[in-house]
């Protein structure tokens, strides 16, 4: 009964014409739809991504090894009454492994910088040597800087606290 009544209230479409639009549908059609334009954001985001992809180079971090220089000109970097451990490093060829290490007053000739570090630790166990015993690095004029830093690093690794550059090498 009720259903028949409601259907009777619906407007009867005229054959051959478009259905009539209600007031609500007309209002919805006239109002602009709310939407978020993502295009500029995606543009900027892609630009940022491309910038980072192009400019980023992965690199190992660099750090510093402590070093002190003598206070007065012409004086040695370490107090000489204590006999220092003198490490001599020379380049013997163009290859990265072409170097010769020697320690004054010791017969040992370390074959690598790790061995040098271990040797310095052993020396410190002897009487009269400790971590404050000066370590002097004497390098030849043609010795690559890399080997000098390797020696310095080995001494720091061995726990030596007073490291200095010595006089002229060969």
């Amino acid at each position, binding site marked *: 009964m009720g259903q028949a009544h409601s259907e009777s209230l619906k407007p009867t479409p005229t054959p051959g014409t478009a259905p009539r639009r209600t007031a609500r549908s007309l209002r919805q059609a006239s109002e602009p739809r709310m939407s978020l334009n*993502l295009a500029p954001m*995606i543009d900027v*985001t*892609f630009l*940022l*991504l491309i910038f*980072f*992809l192009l400019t*980023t180079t992965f*690199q*190992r*971090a*660099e*750090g*510093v*090894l*402590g*070093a*002190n*220089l*003598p*206070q*007065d*000109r012409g004086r040695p970097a370490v107090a000489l009454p204590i006999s220092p451990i003198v490490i001599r490093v020379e380049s013997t060829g163009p290859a990265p492994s072409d170097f010769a290490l020697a320690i004054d007053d010791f017969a040992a000739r370390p074959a*690598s*910088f*790790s061995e040098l*570090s271990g040797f310095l630790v052993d020396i410190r166990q002897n009487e009269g040597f400790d971590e404050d015993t000066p370590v002097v690095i004497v*390098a*030849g*004029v*043609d*010795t*690559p*800087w*890399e080997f*000098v*830093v*390797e020696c*310095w*690093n*080995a001494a*720091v*690794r061995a726990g030596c606290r007073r490291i200095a*550059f010595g006089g002229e*090498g060969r």
Partner: protein
Amino acid sequence: MVVSRVTSWKRRPVGFNMTPMIDVVFLLIIFFMVVSKFASAEHVPMELPQPEHSQARQVKLRDRVIINCQAAETPAGPQVLYRVGPNPPETLEQISSRLARAQAAARAEGRELIVVLRADRRLPFAEVRAALEVVRENEIQQLRLVALVGEGE
């Protein structure tokens, strides 16, 4: 009946779901922004020493002057370029006067100047030693040698 189904399929708007792509792009951008450390102009690109079991530590130093000793390949052969921070290459005499001014300014404020020496690992010791002599002549005691930090640091 078949015709009407085909036409309705054709009229359906073609959608392109951008959400996963934007998610991935944002993740990439956040990753790069977090891991990026912009290189300082003071750190001139060069091959730094890379000691085994490196004891080099990353520290922030105040009142420091960076001396770069760069190995440059020129038409005349390999050459050493000395420069203080990002400045153009200078002679050791010019660097010495620059260090003297910096040392005087630091001492006027009661502080000690620190020299950070960055030298190319391939340079002969004699070339680096020349820079060390300049530092010593200016009675600067605080010196730091730059090397690459070890793996896992």
